[in-house]
């Protein structure tokens, strides 16, 4: 029997992996992938929780909403990365320090 805990555990693991990726990767694309993992973890949560709202399916609607937003965000992020590459010839975020205080 697959219970809510299983979903939440997988979601948490997915979120943690995504976070780890975001924090440790040296490539902007990989960071973006980490972000995607985290978004997906949250979508999984939404879908799992929608089991408790059969009447209006708010969780699933949110899930769809987030997927669309994530797609848009990826598009925007990729454009930013491309512009970054054009400007500084690298997509390693640790090397772009012109904002350092």
């Amino acid at each position, binding site marked *: 029997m697959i219970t809510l805990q299983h979903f939440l555990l997988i979601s948490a693991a997915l979120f943690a992996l995504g976070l780890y990726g975001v*924090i440790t990767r040296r490539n902007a694309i990989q960071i973006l992938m980490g972000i995607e993992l985290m978004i997906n973890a949250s979508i999984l949560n939404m879908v799992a929780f929608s089991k408790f709202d059969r009447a209006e399916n708010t969780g699933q609607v949110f899930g769809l909403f987030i997927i669309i937003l994530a797609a848009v965000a990826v598009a925007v992020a990729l454009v930013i990365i491309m512009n970054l590459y054009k400007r500084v010839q690298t997509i390693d975020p*640790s090397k772009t*320090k012109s904002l*350092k205080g």
Partner: protein
Amino acid sequence: MEQYFTDSQLLYLALITITAPFLSFLFGQFFKKYAVLWGISSISISLVTSVLLFFSVWQNQVLHYSFSWIKLANIQINLGFLLNNLSVIMLVLVSFIALLVHIYSVEYIRKDALKYRYFSYLSLFCFAMLCVVMADNLFLLYAFWELVGFASYLLIGFWFTKRRAVHANKKAFVMNRVGDVGFLVGIMILLAQFGTVDLQTLFAENGLIHSSFVQNGLWVSPFRSMPSAWLTIAGVCFLLGAAGKSAQFPLHSWLPDAMQGPTAVSSLIHAATMVAAGVFLLLRISPLFNEAVLTLMASIGLLTAFMAASIALTQTDIKKVLAFSTISQLGFMVLAVGVQDNASAIFHLSTHAFFKCLLFLAAGMVIHQLHHVKEYTETKFDEQDMANMGGLFKRMPLTAVVFIIAALALAGLPFTSGFLSKDGILISVFDWAGHRGGLFWIFPLLVSITSWLTTFYIFRLIFKTFFGDFRLPNIINVRAEEMHLHDPNNWMKVPAVILAVCCLGLVFAINPLSLESSWLHHAFVQQAHENGLLHLLVPVYINVLSVVLIIAAYYIYAQGRITFSNQRTWYYQFSYQQWYFNWLYDKKLVALVLWKSKMAFWFDRYVIDGLVHFSAKAALFMSRLSDFCDRYLVDGAVNGIASIMSRFSVWFRSMQNGKLQHYFVWMLLLFLGFMIFKIII
């Protein structure tokens, strides 16, 4: 007498009299080339205006101009002139003698590089003296009295490269200060008693002094009263002031030392100006003195006269003899004031001014000529020592003649001015003693002896200087003919001759043998002498013995027929050492003062300075302490906060390192922290 000038014109005349010498003093300092011209012309102007004032005021009126000067509560001090008989006779005397001395000085000081300074100082001296004479209140009188002292200080030390001259002017200055303290205290007492220092208000016929009286041990004035002892103290204080200026015992010892100045200055100081100021003061304030003070004054005058005459007997320095003669004659004047014969005192002051001035000028001529010899022959000897003189009559006849005339006047022989004035004093002393009897007969006795001593010492001087053998050639081995000794030129001769004429009795009296016919004496006389046997007898017996003494002096000193070796006897030494007063003052008083000042120095050095140093150290310690507090506690707190802030901000800044992932981590941590916070609460 009819009035030639209006009051305001007289005021201008009086102003000119004192302004001229003062301007000369200033001009002499700035236009040095013409200092001689300034000096002589200014004193001539003063003489002319003095004579005009004299004829306006003499026996005619009293001029009193006053301008408000200082107002303190209910005390008012004025600035003004008071011209009465006494003032105008002094004015003429001072300016006349000063003019002659100026003229004389032209030759005497001719070769001195600092001639301009000499004449400038002379003018200052005359200015001060004329102001003393004219001052209308005691305060002003005191101010110029001090200025006279200061000017004499400058003149006595004119040859300031001579160590002894510097010593002498210091001594004169210090001893005068002792007297001046008395004067000042006297002024304070009068000010306290009467609330004014105006001479006219105090001492005029109907003045405050006359309206005050002593009753039940209280000295009562119209304003307030004080114990009667203060009247005596005031008198003694003024007497002390006069004693300082007029070189009376016990403040006389500055005057012989003051001989270190140029001889012309000595002549001016001794004749009419500085030393006369003391007697002048006594005469101005004479109504103040009560019986006790007058007796004390007479005693001091008598003692001084006798002492100085006895000292003059043995001095070898020609100027020293004359200096002691001056002290002695001033003693006569003080004695005359003491026996309340002011007329004789003034008369003697005037006649003495002429003959003493002449004596000094003539002595100056001798010294001047011998000084030339010293320079000419390039030898060394003391040009003032009578042992180096003798027989000068043949070589300097005019000098000798005027000197002898002056000496006769000093000795008081008939037909001279001294005869008249000295007889006045002698007769008064006899009268005075006659009224009192008993011990007071010492006064006439000693006065007679002093009078004879005077004759003897001055003729000793004459015979040693002008008669006998000329001793100098044997001493320096230069033949007398090579010395070219002669009378000086007219710059010196003329003043001397004028003064010699003034020494004659005819100048002062129509009948030169009668004191009563003297116009000067007559003007001041309050009560005529009793026309008794004394009046006839005193001059006769004084003069007969004087003539005998002159003859004796001639045999002893001119011819050397009578010799006596008394130089080792105690009385000779006592006289030669000037009664050991210098020894006493130097060894005892000065030593005492020095000891006291050393104690004061020690006290100052160790106690006062010690306290000061200790407090300085304490203050230093306190400031070090507060420096420490400020530096380490206050600044420490401020700096500590600042450095913490800076550390903190460095650390805080390090968050903003521009690394994207670090921002993520921070966000995560913040978020987690927030959540934990939320969960706990």
